[in-house]
């Protein structure tokens, strides 16, 4: 039997693969990720900065929190882009683009804003990203024949979420 050499280093990736087109799409994850980006911007803005007399452990605690907020912000901005890519590339069709002429522009703007929120501490860009993702969610549900409603997210970030309402 073949013996396989083993590497003790960083974890690799193993695929629990599925390429069956299940046809199930939902813009909710993109909205949650956009809300998280907004919340991380808020937390970074609220984070007290250590003064010149701060103890080393206080400066270290500040750096640690800032690192965590930044890492989460970037990860969720990327998550927004992933979710949008799936909707844009897999769900929406050329007929949808005719039905909703603003479709491509919305995705283009949202993708650019998601990149901006990754790169910068920019609460306004995070608000703008959430607004674009909400509009995409509205288009998505309308394309399925549903009415939509907005309601408060009930999260610390504030903001709203878009939900479908069956006719």
């Amino acid at each position, binding site marked *: 039997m073949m013996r*396989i050499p*083993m590497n003790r280093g960083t974890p690799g*990736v193993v695929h*629990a*693969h599925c390429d*069956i087109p299940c046809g199930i799409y939902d813009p909710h994850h993109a909205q949650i990720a956009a809300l998280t980006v907004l919340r991380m911007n808020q937390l970074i803005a609220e984070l007290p900065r250590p003064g010149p007399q701060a103890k080393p452990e206080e400066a270290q605690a500040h750096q640690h929190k800032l690192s965590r907020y930044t890492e989460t912000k970037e990860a969720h901005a990327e998550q927004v882009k992933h979710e949008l890519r799936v909707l844009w590339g897999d769900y929406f069709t050329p007929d949808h683009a005719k039905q909703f002429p603003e479709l491509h522009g919305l995705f283009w703007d949202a993708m650019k804003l998601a990149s901006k929120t990754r790169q910068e501490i920019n609460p306004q860009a995070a608000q703008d990203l959430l607004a674009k993702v909400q509009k995409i969610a509205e288009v998505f549900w309308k394309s399925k024949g549903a009415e939509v409603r907005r309601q408060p997210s009930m999260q610390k970030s504030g903001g709203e979420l878009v939900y479908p309402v069956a006719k």
Partner: protein
Amino acid sequence: MLRRRYRVEGPSMEPTHPPGSRVRVMSLQGEPRRGDIVVLRPPATPRRLDLKRVVGLPGEMVSWGRGEFRVNGSPLAEPYARSPPAPPGDDEVQAWRLGPDEYFVMGDNRLHSTDSRHHGPVKRDRIAGKATDA
């Protein structure tokens, strides 16, 4: 070269190994056994490593249909599997006779898995190792 630890990407091994979970991989000691979760190189994409469960062994007649996997005509008890209810009116059953060095592998998440039902049985030399919880 295999690594010892892997991160799972994709939904096909839910609920046992959800996306993002970690598995520990070791070289197989002996032949794969039914129920083993293995790391393999699928026939069409040999550069990729897939995580699936061995459900059919060499020489067996296996079948899949109506949400049920059978070995030599008998349903296999699979408490680990998330199987879809059989669609009404869908009576299609596919069967495979496994060769002397062929294994049938499936993801535990039967509705969302690309596995031997699609690419056929897997040769023994495609199975690289056995996975356990990290």
